């Protein structure tokens, strides 16, 4: 918490914050002028391509690239040797932790290929066709090994072992033998046995979820250029140019200041662009070729080799008394990590029961490696999986005691002062307000017809802060260039500009946002954890207040009065002392800055803390075709605590986007593998994210319970919206059919089978 940032403005009359201006990046996006990852071209550019393992698990006995190197037009060929082998060291990437030992092995296989699509070599050539031909000339001698893709099979003692040096962290006693279980976590308090003994009703269920991809429309893409003296530039689509710099420098053995990374416009990330795939390879190829190298993934490569979120096996047990008080809650979560450790099971375990005030609670989680692509962060990583299962069981408990599911949640809702299942006491949060808004909403009372059902679910997400820098440069004409180091994936250029304009008291049109490259600011943690409007907003406010201090000082000097007698109001310095009223605008002060002390800039470098959790409640109506199993989403209302909605349209957009991604997760999205561990649907035809006609207009209700740690009361809003949908939809489908659905996705064959099996019994 930075001293300057005090929650003093929440009560203030706001002129810009809370309005809905046009977004500053809108024009370039609709005209096609915006430059995304694949849009950069430079002279003498080579095209890089990756050779990928056709096997789910194989020992790489040898790689012979001599024929590829000899092909005309091939300028560089690399294997894992081109990157540094690194010791085990965990570092944060968004809300996830990554390990450098694993990153270097994930971007290029060493010794073993651990999933279909795992990179084993890369080439750079004068054309894409030559590069492709070169790939076909690389001879890899594989020893195919038994593979495992199911999380529970991977946990068996006789399962094929991915890493022979992996001993379960957190297991007591420490295991003597290696296994695919990377980590065990446990949270909770109280006395479970006593809690369940008090219960009148106990519901215990098992659930499964499938890995789902973030589904960003823009594939991974980059352009790297390394000069002969080792200076390097990298253009790429990413959620964090500073994280890309840190990871690439480590993998290539460079100093971070030798590498300048520029983030392109980003065509969707959702957490999936918080790690590196092509970037270190493009740099290594460019270093070898001494020419710029561009690399772009195909959609097939995106599905085979970039991170989905975990599939999981879950067990939940909840007990409650007849009056609706939850007496005990227990959960066992087994998450697939993909080929390397680091599933989001820990955050999943932490937030599984977080919307509830509980006396007796326990969550145990396992992080398990399998022969699938390494998972990456996906919007509230880990949360939606655990909370889908918990919200399904809570719904069933409410049904059993004949209590309205919203009332049941209200009775047990976490609020300020509630001890979270993961330990600390919660600050002010808005769950109760979202539940009250749900109950009062016209949607909740609307009539339903045959084969229709309504579901409700709540959701919790932490949100984060982190290292953040920003600068405001006041131009000689009084316009303000705003530089931030966090890529804009959800409208943050708009919300940050609005906070700058609000603080400075100037028109929004005079603030011009730029996402700076890594040479323009100090270190910024990436765009993730719903942190940017919160953290970069804090930094912008601090920088703006620094600018205001300077402006007051300049006015005081011009007027030859003490600075204490100059206040900043509505974009003007005003003399408050006795005598003639004096006023100077920001524009006037900027024009004379050269004579009054030089350029006027405000900088902030902070470690933002005090991010407030955002909670949500979603309502959904579905209709199930009992003869085909098709589920139609009829109506959807998302209600969420935003703290303060700086730009309400983009808050609503986040809520709608999360709900739609959740609809896909609930109904159709899944990875389908053959018996050899090869992905059968690496494309948008058969990996079915929702199309526009699949979803109704998502209605939204923004609740504002200010976060006291932010000058405008902001909470992150981007991730929470994907937490409730799966539980809400599963509950709705269950009510429409009379059959409890515990396995995602609820695709038509699965729904029809469940309906038919139920009728047969």
């Amino acid at each position, binding site marked *: 918490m930075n001293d300057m940032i005090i929650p003093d403005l929440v009560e203030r009359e706001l002129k810009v914050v809370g309005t809905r201006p046009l977004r500053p990046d809108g024009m370039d996006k609709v005209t096609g002028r915006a430059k995304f990852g694949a849009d950069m071209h430079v002279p003498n550019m080579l095209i890089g391509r990756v050779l990928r393992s056709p096997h789910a698990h194989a020992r790489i006995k040898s790689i012979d690239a001599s024929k590829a190197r000899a092909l005309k037009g091939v300028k560089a060929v690399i294997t894992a040797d081109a990157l540094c082998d690194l010791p085990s060291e965990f570092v944060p990437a968004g809300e996830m932790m990554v390990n450098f030992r694993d990153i270097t092995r994930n971007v290029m296989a060493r010794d073993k290929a651990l999933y279909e699509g795992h990179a084993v070599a890369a080439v750079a050539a004068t054309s894409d*066709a030559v590069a492709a031909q070169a790939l076909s000339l690389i001879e890899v001698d594989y020893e195919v090994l038994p593979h495992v893709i199911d999380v529970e099979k991977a946990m068996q003692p006789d399962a094929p072992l991915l890493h022979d040096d992996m001993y379960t962290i957190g297991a007591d006693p420490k295991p003597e033998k290696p296994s695919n279980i990377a980590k065990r976590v446990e949270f909770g308090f109280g006395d479970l046995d006593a809690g369940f003994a008090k219960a009148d009703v106990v519901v215990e269920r098992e659930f499964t979820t499938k890995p789902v991809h973030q589904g960003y429309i823009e594939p991974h893409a980059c352009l790297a250029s390394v000069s002969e003296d080792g200076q390097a530039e990298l253009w790429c689509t990413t959620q964090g140019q500073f994280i890309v710099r840190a990871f690439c420098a480590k993998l290539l053995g460079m100093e971070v200041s030798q590498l300048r990374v520029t983030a392109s416009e980003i065509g969707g990330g959702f957490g999936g662009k918080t790690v590196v795939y092509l970037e270190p390879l493009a740099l290594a190829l460019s270093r070898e070729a001494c020419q710029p190298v561009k690399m772009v993934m195909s959609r097939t490569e995106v599905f085979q080799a970039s991170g989905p979120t975990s599939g999981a096996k879950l067990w939940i047990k909840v007990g409650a008394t007849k009056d609706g008080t939850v007496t005990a809650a227990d959960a066992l979560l087994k998450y697939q990590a993909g080929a390397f450790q680091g599933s989001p099971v820990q955050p999943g375990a932490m937030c599984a029961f977080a919307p509830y005030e509980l006396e007796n609670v326990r969550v145990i989680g396992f992080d398990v490696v399998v022969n699938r692509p390494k998972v990456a962060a996906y919007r509230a990583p880990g949360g939606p999986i655990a909370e889908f299962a918990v919200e399904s069981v809570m719904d069933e408990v409410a049904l059993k005691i004949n209590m309205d599911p919203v009332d049941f949640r209200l009775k047990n809702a976490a609020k300020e002062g509630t001890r979270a299942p993961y330990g600390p006491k919660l600050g002010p949060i808005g769950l109760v307000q979202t539940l009250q808004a749900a109950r009062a909403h016209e949607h909740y009372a609307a009539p339903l017809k045959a084969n229709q059902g309504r579901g409700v679910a709540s959701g919790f997400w932490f949100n984060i802060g982190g290292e953040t820098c920003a600068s405001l440069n006041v131009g000689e004409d009084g316009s303000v260039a705003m530089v931030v180091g966090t890529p804009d994936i959800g409208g943050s250029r708009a919300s940050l500009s609005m906070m700058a304009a609000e603080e400075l008291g100037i028109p929004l049109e005079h603030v011009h946002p730029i996402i700076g490259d890594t040479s323009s600011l100090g270190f910024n943690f990436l765009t993730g954890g719903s942190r940017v409007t919160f953290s970069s907003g804090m930094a912008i406010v601090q920088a703006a207040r620094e600018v205001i201090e300077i402006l007051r000082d300049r006015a005081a000097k011009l007027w030859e009065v003490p600075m204490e007698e100059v206040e900043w109001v509505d974009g003007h310095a005003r003399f408050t002392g006795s005598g003639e009223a004096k006023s100077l605008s920001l524009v006037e002060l900027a024009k004379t800055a050269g004579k009054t002390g030089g350029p006027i800039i405000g900088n902030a470098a902070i470690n933002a803390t005090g991010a407030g959790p955002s909670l949500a409640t979603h309502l959904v109506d579905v209709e199930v075709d009992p003869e085909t199993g098709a589920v139609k989403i009829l109506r959807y209302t998302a209600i969420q605590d935003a703290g303060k909605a700086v730009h309400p349209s983009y808050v609503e957009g986040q809520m709608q986007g999360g709900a739609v991604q959740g609809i896909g997760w609930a109904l159709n999205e899944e990875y389908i593998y053959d018996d050899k561990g090869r992905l059968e649907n690496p494309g948008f035809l058969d990996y079915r994210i929702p199309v526009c006609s699949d979803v109704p207009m998502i209605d939204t209700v923004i609740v504002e319970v200010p976060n006291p740690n932010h000058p405008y009361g902001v909470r992150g809003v981007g991730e929470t919206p994907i937490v409730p949908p799966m539980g809400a939809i599963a509950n709705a489908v269950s009510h429409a059919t009379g059959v409890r659905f515990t396995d995602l996705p609820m695709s038509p064959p699965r729904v029809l089978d469940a309906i038919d099996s139920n009728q047969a019994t």
Partner: protein
Amino acid sequence: MLAGKPECIATQYTSSNTHREGKTLEMDYQTPTSAEDAAGLLSKDGAHVLAGGTDLLVKLRAGMVAPKLVVDLKDVPRLRGIENDSQGWRVGAATPCAEIGEHAAFAAAWPGVVESLELIGSTQIQGRATLGGNLCNASPAADTVPALIAAGAVCEVVGVKGQREVPVEQIVTAPGQNSLARGEFVLGFRLPNPPARAGDAYLRFIPRTEMDIAVVGAGVALALDAKGVCTHARVGLGAVAPTPLLVGDGAKALIGTKVDGGALKALAAAASAACNPIDDKRGTVAYRIKVAGVLARRAAGIAYERATSRK
């Protein structure tokens, strides 16, 4: 190149950056202006036919095919256009689906065929996609084929030896394979003028609402007499067997009935019994068998409604 055909330009294509599989292609492209020339060109080794290109271009980009010669049929006379006389309808095989859908009289005569072609891809795709391409691509899941089978459509097949007529259901022989001889192509489709009190309908099931491939498709065409008794019926199914199916027992279940509940139930059973599907990423055997019956029954219900509302 064909002598005396200056419009036939041989072009060399090499793959671009967007060509992901990266094979270097040396490919001729020809635009014949007569059926005879087209048949001659298509007889050559490595020749691929191009109509709308919605399948060929995708396969090219995916590296699934490497044609030596692409024969673009769109300039062949009578391959495009819709005609009607007392003998019935004739639709050129390369007429874009969007054009057929906008033909009010055809849409009134064969609404089921039109609803099938309006399910192909997207609006943009329908501007290129053709009935001939959808049939000859020989996918078991092609949307227009069950509807054309139900409509009793017959293909005009042209080759170096002349022209023959082949019912639509005899064209596809296996996934990706058809009964056309080398050099043959479909010039057009002939459909009858539907009698009074006739109607057709096509339904398909996909997990989403659009941009997907049929898990099951069902087309039904039927005609009623003045008393409302079914005198004629044809039932086509897609995506439930290696080829689109003409379900004779489905027609039998309807003919002679008033298309009542019992008849529809018998139709559903016949449709399910005709299925020989596979388990794949789009659906299971059990699912396809059951839903084929459901869709056939529902399509028959719609066709019946259309028949009774048609004066």
